[in-house]
């Protein structure tokens, strides 16, 4: 058995709970840091984005209706799946040139970030919702609701930690998302898709696409079904996204990818990140005078 033929994996995108190739049939060659060919990564198109949005639309109502506690359980399960394959994840992160130690640190931080939001799932409502004093015979209270479908665009740096840091606050509150992974280091997103698939997360809640930023960003900007855009992108893409978002009236929350972002920082996680991607609903409930 010493001369076993290598069994190499075909990387596929996780969309609608299934593993797909791009409808275009195109791929991009991915090389490791030394320039050796590693794998062919799907080069998704705007039509793949459209299909992913349809998949997210199907999953949306079901995910939003899950109890907060159940969403937390499922997110924790995702951390368990990542922990079990953390060595593989570290290798994927190291493909881009990071040292073994750096990669292991990024994977550990990513798993902890997932656990962090798993904890928030049944707690953010208490922090962000409120009972409001009013000068009439009403019980007035504010609760949070998910926005719907959110477009997420991950930066090239910290390909796993940045991805996880952008995905988790969006889905913790019951949103569904369509994600464009790192352009230069897409492989961690392929692995993350495999872990999402085994984490009890309903198919379609997270849809992970890989592909050329220049082809996908304009469609993220104009797609009317997306209710918000979240990510870290360069100045040119920020302009495109903001113009499109103005036309289709969506919320925009974009970090500057051209400046260094410390994704490890504690300020990159928390209830404020969840608050950025929810809607508030205030109810006036009549009470006896």
């Amino acid at each position: 058995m010493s001369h076993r033929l290598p069994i190499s994996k075909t990387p596929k995108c996780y969309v609608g709970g299934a593993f797909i190739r791009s409808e275009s049939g195109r791929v991009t060659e991915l090389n490791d840091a030394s320039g050796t060919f590693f794998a062919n990564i799907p080069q998704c198109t705007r039509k793949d984005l459209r299909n992913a949005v349809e998949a997210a639309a199907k999953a949306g109502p079901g995910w939003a209706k899950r109890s907060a506690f159940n969403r937390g359980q499922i997110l924790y399960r995702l951390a368990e799946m990542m922990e079990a394959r953390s060595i593989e994840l570290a290798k994927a992160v190291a493909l881009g040139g990071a040292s073994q130690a750096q990669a292991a640190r990024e994977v550990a931080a990513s798993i902890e970030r997932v656990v962090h939001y798993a904890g928030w799932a049944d707690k953010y409502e208490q922090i962000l919702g409120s009972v409001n004093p009013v000068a009439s015979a009403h019980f007035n209270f504010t609760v949070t609701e998910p926005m719907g479908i959110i477009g997420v665009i991950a930066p090239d740096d910290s390909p796993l930690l940045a991805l996880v840091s952008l995905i988790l606050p969006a889905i913790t509150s019951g949103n569904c998302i369509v994600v464009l992974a790192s352009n230069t280091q897409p492989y961690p997103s392929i692995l993350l898709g495999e872990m999402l698939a085994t984490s009890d997360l309903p198919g379609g809640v997270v849809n992970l696409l890989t592909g050329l930023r220049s082809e996908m960003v304009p469609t993220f900007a104009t797609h009317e079904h997306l209710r918000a855009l979240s990510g870290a992108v360069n100045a040119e893409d920020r302009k495109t996204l903001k113009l499109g978002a103005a036309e289709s009236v969506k919320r925009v929350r974009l970090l500057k990818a051209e400046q260094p972002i410390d994704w490890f920082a504690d300020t990159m996680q928390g209830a404020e990140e969840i608050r950025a991607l929810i809607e508030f609903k205030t109810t006036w409930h009549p009470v006896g005078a």
Partner: protein
Amino acid sequence: MPAAKAPTSLRRLFDEIGTVDQVGIEERVAKFTTRSLKKNSKVFGLRLAVSMVDLTTLEGKDTPGKVASLCQKALRPHDVGDIPPTAAVCVYPAMVKHARKHVGGTQVKIASVATAFPSGQAPLKTRLAEVHAAVKDGADEIDMVINRGAFLSGEFGRMQDEIAAVVEACGQATLKVILEVSELETYDNIRAASFLAMRVIRPGDFIKTSTGKTSSNATLGNNQVMLEAIRDHFLATGIPIAMKPAGGIRTAKQALHFLIAVKETLGDEWLNNRRYRFGASALLNDLVRQLEKERTGAYQAPWNFSEATEGY
């Protein structure tokens, strides 16, 4: 029911009109879904499909109010963009007079299902009375169901006599003969029933796939069998028969596949709403949504269009 085991009357008919190559048909229609339609030709196809829709409501809970909104939607499918009205509204006979108030005198026609839709299991006298009543109330088109029981037991004479009686009862109204393909079971039977119907209806009358009330409805396969029957009948007699697939066509992409089948089987003469229709209720929303996408260049959200807000 394989042709060899069919009743004598059916076997004799197959000797005359030929049977259907099932594998061949399915390979042929699979090809229709591979055509690439872009830009202008796509917009042309979508607009054509809108103008071919028989916008349908056939439910026990139909009310005059619901029919009124259906009629307004048929007249003006969307508030922006230059989108044509649909070909017709399709309602139950009791709703014809309500539809007439809204679309009477416009280019949108009133189609009414009749003849004990969807089963057809009522005495002929009752079925004809229903046709008379619908025509009297102002129906421009009558959608009848064939007597599947008569067809399956080989009583072709009876089946054709009944169609002929309905043709007479229609007067000026156009007739659409529903074969209910899912209950005919084989492509051979669909071809046979198409020919039997086409021999007794008038030029410009329709044959129609299904009621939309059974498990399986219009598919590219049974649509193709009927289109080829129309083609063979036309080549033999010179009589043009129109076609209406109904039920199960929900997306704009499906509608374009059906139009490609028409274009490549019957040609441009059939690419208008006098010769081809879609019986559908949800299809119009997706056609309008795709036309808006072509007009604005942005993928549209479902909540900007009537119905189908479940994705929100």
